[in-house]
């Protein structure tokens, strides 16, 4: 009997377990998935909670109900991986030996990493929406907010869903407008990036969208500390941004057990080969989803595309054959822009987001880098697809590798 142990039953871990259970012989393989609790959250839904458009309880389901029969689910906090001995120790002492290990423990917001963020002002004037609690608390705060300065802020990159702060800004602008409050609120978008987004074509398009909405862009802003008394963000180069209401994305870091086990980089991400997702340090360890140090977005779509590629590779690997598939970094993100419209971006390691149509060249029905109602419907439909097709590991009609067909290359900078 061989043992495959998967750490984390989120997007990547659940998909991988379900897909592999179908392919690995039950007489030869035991599959064990570990998570600290039995609550699977649909994280993209957090975005809508502060605006009262999503009931928080509706985003949570039981983890084990989404794991296929024949997958063992263990509830417990991972304490340490002892890679030299191929075993995992849980808090409380339980040990799980493995032949192969998949680390799918994601990334999480760490407000305590920024001085002043988590003190007396936390969830009074400083909020996050990267946790369900945070998004729910922010809903109350927004309801009572009718004038002043709203600052939407990113602490440092990378973060999961890198477009989320932009989406939050666009939605807040629309929400304030609908309530007739927009003229009484000044909005600032503060980011450590040199512009609204990383890649040139998308950055300029999204930057224009901030301009059109009169949201001031404060670029290259790397926060050093927050003064909760004067309600001010202070950057390393001593710029200051005052706020009445701060919506921040705290520093995102991989799981602490990754660091304790000596498997992580400076942000606790597992260094992997970017094409096979295999650990650079251990041949029988892989990292999937946000837990890996891939140079692409940390997003559910990346988790999905990379698992599609990982499964056949893993089967080759355990059969002693070379892995023949190569992950291209494919990411695909909807960007809500307010008033029931959204944009869509599609990119990979080598090609930046470009305008065009998706998934069918020229026909769509979705439009890349353009605000449409159809894209918004696509984003909403995704929640259903997530629970009913993606997590169970059923095939969904999206290409795993990125395609250039139907994209407007002339937009790309020389």
């Amino acid at each position, binding site marked *: 009997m061989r043992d495959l142990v998967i750490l984390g039953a989120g997007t990547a871990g659940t998909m991988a377990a379900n897909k592999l259970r179908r392919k690995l012989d039950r007489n030869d393989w035991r599959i064990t998935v570990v998570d600290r609790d039995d609550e699977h959250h649909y994280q993209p839904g957090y975005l809508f909670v502060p605006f009262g458009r999503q009931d928080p309880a509706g985003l949570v389901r039981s983890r084990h109900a989404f794991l296929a029969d024949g997958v063992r689910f263990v509830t417990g906090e991972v304490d340490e991986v002892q890679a030299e001995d191929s075993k995992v120790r849980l808090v409380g002492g339980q040990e799980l030996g493995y032949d192969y290990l998949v680390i799918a423990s994601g990334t999480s917001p760490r407000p305590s990493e920024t001085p002043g963020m988590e003190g007396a002002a936390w969830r009074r004037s400083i909020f996050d929406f990267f946790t369900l609690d945070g998004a729910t608390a922010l809903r109350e705060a927004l309801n009572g907010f009718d004038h002043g300065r709203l600052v939407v802020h990113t602490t*440092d*990159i*990378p973060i999961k869903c890198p477009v989320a702060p932009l989406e939050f800004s666009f939605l807040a602008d629309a929400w304030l407008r609908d309530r007739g409050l927009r003229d009484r609120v000044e909005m600032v978008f503060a980011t450590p990036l*040199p512009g609204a987004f*990383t890649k040139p074509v998308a950055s300029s398009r999204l930057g224009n969208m901030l301009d059109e909405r009169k949201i001031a862009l404060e670029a*290259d802003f790397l926060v050093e500390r927050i003064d909760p008394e004067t309600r001010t963000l202070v950057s*390393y180069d001593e710029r200051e941004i005052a706020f009445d209401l701060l919506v921040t994305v705290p520093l995102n870091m991989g799981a602490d057990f990754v660091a304790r086990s000596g498997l992580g*980089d400076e942000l606790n991400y597992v260094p992997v080969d970017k094409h096979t997702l295999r650990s650079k340090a251990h041949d029988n360890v892989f990292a999937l989803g946000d837990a890996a140090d891939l*140079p692409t977005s940390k997003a559910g779509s990346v988790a999905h595309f990379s698992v599609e590629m990982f499964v056949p590779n893993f089967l080759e690997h355990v059969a002693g054959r070379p892995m023949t598939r190569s992950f291209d970094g494919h990411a695909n993100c909807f960007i809500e822009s307010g008033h029931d419209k959204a944009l869509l971006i599609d*990119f990979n390691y080598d090609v930046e987001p470009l305008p065009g149509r998706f998934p069918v060249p020229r026909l769509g029905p979705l439009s890349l880098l353009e605000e449409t109602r159809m894209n918004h419907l696509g984003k909403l439909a995704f929640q259903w697809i997530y629970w009913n097709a993606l997590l169970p590991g059923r095939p969904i009609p999206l290409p795993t590798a990125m395609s250039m067909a139907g994209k407007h290359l002339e937009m790309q900078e020389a």
Partner: protein
Amino acid sequence: MPVTTIDGHTIHVDDEGFMTDYDEWDEQLASTLAGQIGVELTDEHWKALHFLRTDFREKGETPTLRRVSVSAGIPTKTLFALFPAKPAKKMAYVAGLPKPRGCV
């Protein structure tokens, strides 16, 4: 790739002037590159630059500010003082490494 001559060195650079060939760099060139962006190199600057060079050789990638501060033990605040305004870009420029990849 454009080729340029600086201080008697013929080097390959990208269109923003970042060196693209690891082996074309030496310390004398670093001092000249630093001068071009108004930085005079002290021991503290060298500590950061040597970390960047070694880390790039091992990882194949220009380290981020956070990585320099955590792994080389130089506080981010100090890096901003040493290479004002855009420390990540400026350090990479002087260390003869590719422009740091903005994460996506």
